[in-house]
């Protein structure tokens, strides 16, 4: 039971990463590799800030801001420097590896004997693992409400249009470069926040914490889409958070089959690959069914014709 509760809590905290990635991957329609750097950046900033006496809650704000700066760096390389966005993200991600090491002062920094959001009196009084569920749900509700409101504003609509049809957005006077920078900043801010929450939940930050997180975020998005199907944009934000929880369940099952923690990245990649192939496989399956129907109905038609 506690394993399932823990998975839900983890899924919610990682869900924030998924929602951030959704803004770039689905709304702006490009893969943003920056997240592999902004995630551990958020973790590093939060943990380092706490060890320097900053309150855990305020450290989350700093982590969000740091993530935004990372997103801005990628955005400027992409929009002003005309570096392809995939490469821009990889450059920033690589640079952040060194920066994160400097922020932490070493490869791994523990929050042992330090204040921590999850040591808060109320959260500590909850049954085990319910603290992360509580924080996760709270954070996701706030983020989702803010994003849903934002996406319905004129600015939010211009942001969506930029990802949907850039030429058209420009012809309507939308400053598409500014929209992309804004999207990258907010997305990586959320990713940094997610990293900070997970670091506090784990009790440490590690420079290698970011490896493979883009796959985890994408898995949340894709699982949400495959499982819940056609949805409105607002609903898709929630579906991504739920997809993140489902992804944790999938991991539980796979780990239960006897795979170890060392196999986690391999499993992550395989799970995402399978999910990405679902639409293709499904459409092929439907095609087959349609073909069969067509073959079955044809003799009947011919019979009609002969009459």
């Amino acid at each position, binding site marked *: 039971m506690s394993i399932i509760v823990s998975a839900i809590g983890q899924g919610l905290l990682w869900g924030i990463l998924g929602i951030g990635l959704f803004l770039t991957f689905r709304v702006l329609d490009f893969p943003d590799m920056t997240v592999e750097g902004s995630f551990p950046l958020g973790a590093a900033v939060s943990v380092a800030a706490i060890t320097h006496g900053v309150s855990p809650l305020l450290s989350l704000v700093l982590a969000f801001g740091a993530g935004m700066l990372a997103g801005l760096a990628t955005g400027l390389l992409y929009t002003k420097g005309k570096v392809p966005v995939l490469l821009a993200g990889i450059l920033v991600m690589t640079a952040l590896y060194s920066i994160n090491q400097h922020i932490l002062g070493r490869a791994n920094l523990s929050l042992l004997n330090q204040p921590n959001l999850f040591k808060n009196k109320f959260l500590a009084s909850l049954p085990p693992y319910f603290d992360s569920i509580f924080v996760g749900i709270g954070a996701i509700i706030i983020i989702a409400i803010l994003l849903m409101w934002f996406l*319905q504003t*004129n*600015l939010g609509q211009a942001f969506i249009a930029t990802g949907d049809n850039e030429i058209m957005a420009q*012809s309507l*006077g939308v400053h598409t470069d500014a929209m992309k920078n804004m999207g990258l900043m907010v997305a990586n801010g959320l990713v940094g926040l997610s990293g900070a929450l997970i670091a506090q939940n784990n009790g440490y930050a590690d420079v290698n914490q970011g490896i493979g997180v883009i796959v985890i975020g994408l898995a949340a998005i894709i699982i949400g889409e495959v499982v819940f199907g056609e949805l409105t944009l607002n609903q898709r934000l929630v579906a991504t958070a739920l997809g993140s929880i489902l992804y944790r369940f999938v991991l539980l099952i796979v780990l239960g089959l006897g795979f170890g923690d060392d196999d986690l990245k391999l499993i992550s990649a395989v799970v995402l690959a399978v999910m990405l192939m679902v639409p293709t496989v499904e459409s092929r399956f439907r095609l087959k069914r349609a073909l069969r129907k067509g073959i079955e109905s044809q003799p009947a038609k011919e019979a009609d014709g002969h009459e």
Partner: protein
Amino acid sequence: MSDAAVVLKDVSVTVHQQNQTKTILDDVDLTIAPGDFVTVLGTNGAGKSTLFNAIAGNLAASGQVTLAGQNVTSLNAIQRAKYIARVFQDPKLGTAGRMTVAENLVLAQHRGERRTLRGRRLEAARPQLQAEAAQFSNGLDQLLDSPTETLSGGQRQSLSLLMAVQKDPALLLLDEHTAALDPHTSAQLMALTDRVIKERHLTALMITHRMDDALKYGNRLIVLENGRLKADYNAAAKAKLKREDLLEFFD
């Protein structure tokens, strides 16, 4: 002169390809009065699209462009969107496919404006949008909440036209906007285009390859050839023009 809707002065566009300099638009001077509906004819490569791109600011051009009395020469395409609305040839280019018809229209109501954190007020705009969409009588008004990628080409081009005129632009650019449609739908959209331009007293430039449309619509006709203005017929001269007169430009 200052009350002209559009003034082009010595507008030239040259491109450099493999050590060769090619002039696509060659010192074009053009003045268009407010309310004029000018049809633009020319063979492929005559510079029609380049002319549009130079006016809209989509490519670097020398010379001067004045729109509604404002010198916009130094403004880029995004900044010129305040003055210019454009309907593209490709139905996919004119609308955001995953956004609904109503969302696209509201987006166009803020053409050239600063996009702020104010609510988009979609519901308040709905009755007006519905009424405007209904005039096309192609079912667009019943599809306000459908993503535009599910629309037919004709519906998408109607929507693009409606979006283009939402804010009464100083200049409407129609870039072969009926070319991708079947003859029937094309004729329907052309008639509506004409009506909208007249009703709203818009200034418009229309590129077309359909000579009959060029003759039938608008009150002025210009012919481009090798990047130059080859012929320019005002309303009276255009009324006397026949198809055969134009064919000589296309041999």
